[in-house]
Each structure stands twice: as C-alpha cells, then as structure tokens.
C-alpha cells in the first residue's frame, strides 16, 4: 500500500485511458503526458498501460507500506526518499515506511510516479483512470491508501538510461495539423494563428487548455460532432480551447486545428503563463 500523507494540488490515478466507450459519451482520459507515463513504466519494466499516479504543479507526500520500486518522470520537483534526493527517470528501490516527498518545482507541470506492477485501484470500463461518475474518486485526498501490486522489484532494466529530450519541456512549438473546419477561417486569421504567440491560461485543466489570446472570427457553431483530445476549438467570442484527455466526446464549436499526439504530451507540461506557437505540419 501507498499512503497519501498530504495530497498535492491535483493528484489522480491514470493509465492509457478508456478506449472503445466513447459511443456512451465516456471521455478517453488517461495520463495527460502519455509519453512520460509510458517512460516511467518502461524504466520499471511494467507494461505500457500500468496505472501511474499523476500530480500537477504541487506533488503529494507519500508513505510506502510495502517494498517496491518506483520511477518518477515528467515534472521535475526535487524528489526525495527519506530526505535523500533521487533523480527523475531512474529506477529507485523503496522499502516499507519510506517517505517520498518533493521540494520546489523546477520545470514541467505534470509529474508521474510509477510503481512496480502499477497501482491497483478499481478498474472501470477497462481502465483505472479517475473520472467523475465513472470511478468512485476523481482525485486523491490526504489519508487515501493505494493498493500496489505484490510483484517484487527485480534489478533487471535498472541499467536502462532513458532520458527525456529537453524539447519535451522546453519546446515552444506545438505541432498541429489542419482541423476539419480549418478552411472556414479567413486567410488573415489563418496567418495570425501561426504568427502569433499564445499563452496558456490559468483556466486550464485535464478537460481543456484555454488560451489568453483571442482570434476574431465570424464562424457559426457547427452541428454537434465528434471531437478528440488535441482538437482546437474556436468559439464565437474568439476563445481558443485545446481539448485535453478528459474532454467530452462531442462538441459544437468549429474544430480548426488538431494537435499531434506528441504535441498533447508537450502541451500538458506547460504551465499557465507559458507561451507557444502553433507549428503547422502537413498531414
């Protein structure tokens, strides 16, 4: 078991999400930065879809009640075991009663903690990803206990050095493709879309990232149609909404751009106030 001694700003259990249930209006969910979550599992020798703990800006404080091994990826925030610094992206053995704490955030927005075999919280619709009205909980709170697998840590894979490329956190270019409704935008505004720098708004969460800048337009709403994580919607008031992992399955605003899968991962590491540009890729 892992005990949550002090919850962080927004902690949840995530895997690769619920695929195949969107016809019931169920969001896909899953780790916001799927790249970092998979990396943490790979370093431990877990399968890709083992459930990890995702934390946001402020990490939780945790206590281990069993022996296991862990790996932290994503946001870098001076992690310590019993006060001793540990590195991100490494295989770390932990013993019963060990404490995992974090200091100041250095960079990134979302951190991942993987344990051997993955967290064993309830599986609903083939996924352990937290989501209101689907799982009992939608976020972790202080005092929660999380079941972990009884598999023991082996020292296989410990030599693997898997680094996250710098641009994963630092790149200010977000790769996009033309969205389904892209051609509805006037040429001038298309240019503005790619020449302007956009800022992540503080009203950003697992459902959508909002941007501070607006894009004037006279587009009509569309007939409600499918959307996906990474879809950029443009509202009549000019607001740009980038749908993220917990987004609805359908929407009524024009879908002007679509982020690449890697761009979704990178955007989810951006904090409110950070800027970026859309970089158009040919399909």
């Amino acid at each position, binding site marked *: 078991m892992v005990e949550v001694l002090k919850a962080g700003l927004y902690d949840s259990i995530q895997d690769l999400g619920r695929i195949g249930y969107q016809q019931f209006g169920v*969001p896909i969910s899953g780790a916001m930065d799927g790249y970092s979550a998979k990396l943490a599992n790979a370093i431990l020798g877990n399968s890709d879809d083992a459930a990890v703990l995702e934390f946001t800006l402020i990490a939780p404080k945790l206590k281990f009640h069993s022996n296991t091994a862990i790996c932290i990826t994503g946001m870098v925030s001076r992690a310590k075991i019993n006060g001793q610094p540990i590195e991100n992206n490494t295989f770390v053995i932990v013993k019963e009663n060990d404490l995992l704490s974090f200091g100041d955030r250095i960079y990134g927005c979302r951190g991942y903690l993987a344990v051997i075999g993955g967290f064993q919280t309830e599986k609903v619709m083939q996924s352990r990803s937290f989501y209101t009205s689907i799982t009992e909980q939608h976020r972790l709170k202080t005092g929660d206990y999380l079941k972990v697998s009884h598999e023991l840590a082996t020292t296989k894979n410990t030599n693997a050095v898997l680094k996250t490329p710098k641009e994963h956190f630092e790149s200010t270019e977000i790769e996009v493709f033309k969205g*389904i409704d892209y051609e509805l935008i006037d040429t001038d505004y298309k240019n503005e879309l790619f020449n302007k720098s956009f800022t992540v708004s503080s009203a950003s969460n697992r459902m959508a990232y909002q941007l501070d800048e607006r894009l004037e337009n006279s587009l009509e709403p569309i007939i409600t149609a499918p959307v996906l994580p990474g879809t950029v919607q443009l509202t009549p008031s000019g607001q740009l909404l980038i749908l993220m992992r917990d987004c609805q399955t*359908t929407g009524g605003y024009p879908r002007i751009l679509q982020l690449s899968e890697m761009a979704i991962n990178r955007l989810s590491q951006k904090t409110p106030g950070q800027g970026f540009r859309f970089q158009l890729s040919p399909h």
Partner: protein
Amino acid sequence: MDHFKLTYSRYSETSILVEWPQYIAPEILSDILLFKTYLLKENSESIIQITNAYSSILITYTSNDVDIDTQITTLKAKYDSRQNFEIGPQKLWKIPVCYDFSFGLDLEELSKAKKLSIPEIVRIHSEAIYKVYFIGFLPGFLYLGGLDKLLFTPRRASPRSQIEKGAIGIGGEQTGVYPNASPGGWNIIGNSPIAFFNPKLEQPCFAKAGDCIQFVPVDFKTHQEISSQVKNGTYKIESEVLDG
C-alpha cells in the same frame, strides 16, 4: 436506400472523420448507422472504434502505423458497396418523468414565455417520440431529436452551477436528460428516476443511437417508488421493439 455524397478527412494521426451533408435528419442517421454497422461487421482489425454524431462518424485506428490515405480509399469503396441490411432491433423506451414543481424549476417561467399552460407543456413534451441520435456531452447523455417547435426555448441566460441527476431540460431546439449532476444552462421541466448511465454494466446505457424515447408523466409518489426500485436494481424499463 439513400446514397449521400460523403466527405472523408484525416482527423488525427490515427482517425478519419466521414461527414454526411450537414443537417439533422432521421434519414441521415439511418445511413450513418447502416454504414457504421457494416464497417463493424466487416471487423477490420485495425479499427478500434467508431463513434457517431448527428451527421458524421469518427473512425479510430489502432496505431500510428496506419496509412490514413489507404484507409480512406477502403472506406469509400465500402460505402459504395454497402448493402441494405437489418441493423438490429430498434427499441422504444418508456421513460417515467415527474413534471412536479419540485423538479420542474423552470416550468412556470416556460409557461409564461410560451403562453402555454403547464399541463399543455407536459402533454406536448410527453406525446412526442424522440429519436436517439447519439450519446455525447456527458457519459450517458442522449442527443434526442423530435422536440415540438412549440417548446423551443433558448438556454437560460446564466447557467446553474448544479443540476440534479435525472433532470429533464429544454435547451434551444433540444430536450434531454442529465445523466448525472452537472452544471447546465437548460430549462428544467421535470425529473426522471431512471439511471441513464451505469459504468458497472457491460452496456452502460440502455438506449443506443437509432432507438426512440417517450416520456411518461408520473406523479411524485410514483417517482419516489421507481427511484427506490432503480436503487435496488429491481426496476425494468418498459420498452417495445419498433418495426422497420
């Protein structure tokens, strides 16, 4: 069998959007469901899932390796060669609704705005047979077509921060049921004790696209009784199989 001019576009690295002419109509829904069922029947291993909305379907493929252009060619050929076949039984579900004032928070306002008495509103709303076009917005939220023009009402100027589970609302030209408590801007006229979404069931929603819904007015006491039967798992929603 209708034959529409479809548009095929890459949506993301792993998905394709197929669009029908952009309007809402039962014949478009029928053609969408026919094509969707046909594609699923063909059981192409590279397709993970197909979801539909009013006038489009989104087809998601397994991996980044998928060649979208080749898949688009395949889809076009399949649409042209599809046969008319039975897509499985479509049902009419009878959904109990209590239009009591304790639930129908906006009934009075609606009555004034529409110059219709409350019994008339209830009659018009519960006489219609609504078509389920798809499920979206929230888990278990049915997009229904068929609201009588007399009841078209703009969304409330300021949305409520919390709408009860089971609330029946009217928003613009649509009516629907909130499957779970949520913020929302629709005009609330009643409440249904039925569970529209149960994540623990293999079929989390009883209704599917193509089915029909009719609301059956019940009094407050019956609402409470059904509500406890739903909790015990003893309530069975009344339904009938539709012809054709």
